[in-house]
């Protein structure tokens, strides 16, 4: 009986101890700011509560004795406090320290434009490149709607903040692409060779870039190719100007894929429909094949192989300015090959390895002839400036490169990166005219080593010092280039970044055929960026100063380098505003650049603003997509004030003092994604320069024919046609694994 009583008492005791103790307090961060929604738990029990909007929490517990009270909030380090529960109310005030967190930390690379799906904070998305009106899916043309990039209508390339096209380097998976654009044609800017759909990530730095890259005084554009595609598919593209076909085969386990595509572009039909100002005696005709193989290795590594081959042929005839009635006939045959193999692998313990090797080859065969009114080759006129227009130029470029970068993560989100690269550039030229054949060759073996580290002092303050050492075999010289970036987070969406660096570049090899006793070209960058980036809005303002301490000088004929005592500067202010939120379904961005730049380089007789710079320029890009109808409309307006042009009628003091008229272009494109049969299709219609605005990129002058006032005559450099049109239909038949799943399960 006694026993029974004890048991009953015990039973009761188990419940009689349920006298409740109240636990209250507050949760704040280490700066005293309220943390709402933090959880407070009596460890090992069910009891606890959440902090409210004032940071206070309170709960009651029936537990007795010593317990740990735990406060946790996502993004903060968890804190445990020991409490004694003995009937008295308990009060605890927590102070949580913010945990190092990549998503919340300040962005070191805020000075550059990033387009990526993977990173949370990006200004652009990869899809934007394909849907910007006027760009016709050309990567460089889309980047020209961002501040810092100048629009130069008569020449291809990235002209960044008063820098020439040679001052920008473009890479794919870390490997430099020597001939990113189609070969130059006088007076007509060429597109980039690569489709934006090859890439999942784009980093466009308009200055102050990392020590991991080099050999660019102004800018780097780094493109990262896609990994394994989502699904297997067959693609066909049809347009009055091109036809393409290709496939991607993705392995069932999604560990590997391969693909192949062929693309043929021929503008003869287009040029019949849309009259062109120059006389194309051979319409541009391009054949491109490319192939890829991608393979996921053990431990989430990735091996990617890409190969590209293209041939381009065209012939274009323009009236000669040197003699009335004669014409210059320019023809170009280009062959280009690019292949790269990249491999990245996590090695465990915070180590990561990134390697790439590439081979590129480019061959231009250029022939220029003076022709008469009947398009027949003229015999020698005995006038040298005319006869020298009979020439042939064969140009071969080989580039082999290899690069390895190792990264070690330490202490939450800090990183240390170091690596090395070698480039082997071999160029050969053969120029022939009435005076004979002039072969030349130049070879540069370039090596570089670099190291940088990302140091997060707090989540809000990060510092990235870097150093790069380079050696050029051609110059037989070394250089050192330090870089630094400091970023400070002002609020949840805004931050300040300061970038500094010394940037060096080997002078353009074509000027170094006869003499190589030169130094590297050098520019110093100072950049200050304020950025506000939330999911709906992006606002950026950048101020920069670029000091060209050393630029190349050449002889008057622009043939041989004479020194690296050229110099110049560029300074300016840039604004960018993007808004995806205010108007439902409408996305727009506005960019503006102010640029003040002058330089004395190449054969400039004085310091002047170069032809590839405009004082004010900007863009407005608008996109609207109707998801239900799968229909989108895009508009863009690009404008700039006039650019300098060379007028030989002026004395040397007036060099480049003339300005063209202001530039303006309004562009429209439409995309519609209907389902045609079993194919997912995209119909794209585009019109560039909708309002037929007059665009003048500069003037070409005669070297001998003068008008009645004794002035050399000129013609305006204008686009081949005032408007350009695009119409294309892209079809893809996808073997969608999700559809297979549905069907096999029903």
């Amino acid at each position: 009986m006694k026993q029974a009583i004890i048991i009953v008492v015990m039973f009761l005791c188990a419940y009689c101890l349920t006298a409740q103790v109240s636990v209250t307090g507050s949760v704040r961060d280490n700066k005293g700011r309220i943390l709402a929604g933090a959880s407070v738990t009596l460890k090992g029990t069910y009891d606890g509560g959440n902090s409210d909007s004032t940071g206070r929490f309170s709960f009651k517990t029936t537990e007795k004795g010593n317990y740990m009270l735990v406060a946790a909030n996502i993004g903060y380090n968890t804190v445990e406090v020991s409490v004694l529960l003995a009937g008295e109310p308990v009060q605890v005030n927590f102070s949580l320290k913010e945990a190092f967190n990549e998503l919340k930390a300040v962005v070191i690379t805020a000075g550059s434009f990033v387009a990526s799906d993977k990173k949370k904070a990006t200004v652009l998305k990869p899809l934007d490149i394909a849907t910007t009106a006027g760009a016709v899916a050309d990567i460089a043309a889309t980047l020209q709607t961002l501040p810092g990039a100048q629009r130069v209508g008569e020449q291809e390339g990235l002209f960044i903040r008063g820098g020439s096209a040679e001052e920008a380097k473009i890479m794919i998976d870390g490997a430099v692409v020597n001939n990113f654009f189609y070969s130059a044609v006088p007076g007509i800017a060429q597109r980039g060779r690569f489709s934006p759909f090859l890439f999942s990530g784009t980093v466009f730095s308009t200055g102050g870039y990392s020590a991991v890259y080099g050999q660019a005084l102004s800018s780097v554009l780094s493109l990262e190719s896609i990994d394994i595609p989502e699904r297997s598919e067959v693609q066909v593209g049809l347009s009055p100007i091109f036809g393409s076909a290709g496939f991607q085969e993705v392995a069932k386990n999604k560990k590997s894929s391969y693909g192949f595509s062929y693309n043929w572009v021929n503008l003869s039909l287009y040029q019949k429909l849309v009259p062109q100002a120059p006389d194309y005696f051979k319409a541009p005709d391009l054949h491109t094949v490319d192939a890829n193989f991608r393979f996921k290795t053990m431990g989430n590594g990735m091996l990617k192989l890409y190969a590209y081959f293209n041939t381009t042929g065209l012939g274009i005839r323009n009236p000669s300015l040197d003699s009335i009635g004669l014409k210059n006939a320019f023809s170009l045959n280009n062959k280009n090959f690019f292949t790269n193999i990249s491999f990245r692998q996590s090695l465990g313990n915070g180590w990561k390895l990134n390697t790439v090797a590439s081979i590129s080859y480019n061959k231009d065969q250029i022939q220029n002839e003076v022709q008469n009114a009947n398009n027949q080759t003229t015999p020698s006129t005995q006038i040298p400036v005319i006869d020298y227009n009979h020439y042939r130029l064969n140009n071969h470029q080989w580039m082999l490169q290899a690069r390895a970068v190792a990264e070690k993560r330490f202490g939450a989100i800090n990183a240390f990166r170091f690596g090395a690269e070698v480039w082997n550039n071999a160029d050969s030229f053969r120029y022939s005219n009435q005076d004979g054949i002039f072969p030349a060759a130049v070879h540069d073996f370039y090596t570089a080593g670099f190291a940088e580290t990302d140091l997060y002092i707090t989540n809000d303050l990060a510092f990235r010092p870097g150093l790069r050492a380079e050696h050029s075999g051609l110059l037989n010289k070394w250089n050192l280039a330090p870089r630094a970036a400091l970023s400070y987070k002002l609020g949840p969406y805004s931050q300040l970044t300061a970038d500094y660096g010394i940037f060096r570049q080997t002078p353009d090899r074509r000027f170094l055929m006869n003499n190589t006793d030169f130094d590297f070209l050098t520019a110093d960058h100072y950049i200050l960026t304020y950025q506000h980036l939330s999911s709906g809005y992006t606002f950026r303002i950048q101020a920069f100063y670029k000091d060209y301490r050393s630029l190349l000088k050449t002889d008057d004929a622009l043939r041989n380098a004479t020194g690296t005592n050229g110099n110049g500067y560029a300074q300016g202010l840039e604004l960018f505003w993007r808004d995806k939120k205010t108007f439902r379904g409408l996305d727009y961005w506005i960019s503006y650049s102010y640029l003040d730049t002058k330089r004395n380089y190449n054969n400039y007789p004085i310091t002047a603003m170069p032809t590839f710079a405009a004082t004010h320029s900007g863009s407005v890009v608008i996109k609207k997509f109707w998801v239900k109808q799968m229909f989108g409309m895009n508009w863009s307006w690009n404008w700039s004030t006039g650019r300098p042009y060379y007028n030989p009628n002026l004395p040397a003091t007036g060099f480049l003092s003339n300005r063209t008229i202001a530039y303006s272009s309004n562009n429209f494109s439409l995309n519609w994604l209907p389902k045609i049969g079993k194919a997912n299709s995209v119909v794209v219609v585009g019109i560039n320069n909708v309002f037929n605005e007059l665009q003048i990129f500069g003037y070409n002058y005669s070297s001998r024919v003068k008008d009645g006032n004794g002035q050399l005559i000129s013609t305006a450099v204008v686009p081949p046609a005032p408007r350009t049109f695009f119409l294309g239909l892209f079809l893809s038949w996808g073997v969608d694994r999700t559809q297979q799943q549905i069907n096999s399960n029903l």
Partner: protein
Amino acid sequence: MKKLLLIVAMLVVGFTQAQSRYEGAMQKGLAQLSEAKTPADMLAVSAFFERVADAEKDKWLPYYYAARTNILAGWMDPKADKDKSAEKSKQLIAKAVALEPNQSDIFCLEQQVAVQQLTVDAMNRWQTYGAVAAEAIAKAKTADPANPRPYLLEGQYQLNVPEAFGGGKAVAKKLLEKSLTLFSSYKPASPFHPDWGKELAEKTLAACQ
């Protein structure tokens, strides 16, 4: 003998008490779940389930409900930072998976989180997060072919996918009908096991007509 009896009695008391404590907590949590009206209520339920789960250490169900309510709270609050909320959901799901590696309903949670993150920027995210969602559903179906919820979630998802991308009403309808067929013979393994979705499947199917 007396001592032994006493020890046994104490153990029995302790055991039954612990058992009923867990069950009581689950009942209380599920009751709160059905009564939660605001995102804050839902987050409180989630925190409660998380505490139960952390204290129990070996039970996946409280983690399941903690994740589910966290996801629901994310949907209830249109202003919520869905990526941040998804981080929390994923942490909870990871703990549930560690205890129960091949649970169809946990895979369903993975799909729901992926869809939640997808909606932040559907235009740009559908390829990556859509693939994650599809993979989770495939795993859920394999883990338990009789579970109607993977079909319900997939149907719900496909209803919002434009026809041009292989979704639409017709596709969704087939999936929801399949889900309802499975619901008609579905029995949860215990009173605390997931038992939701039949009404939702009916409602969503009605929207497909």
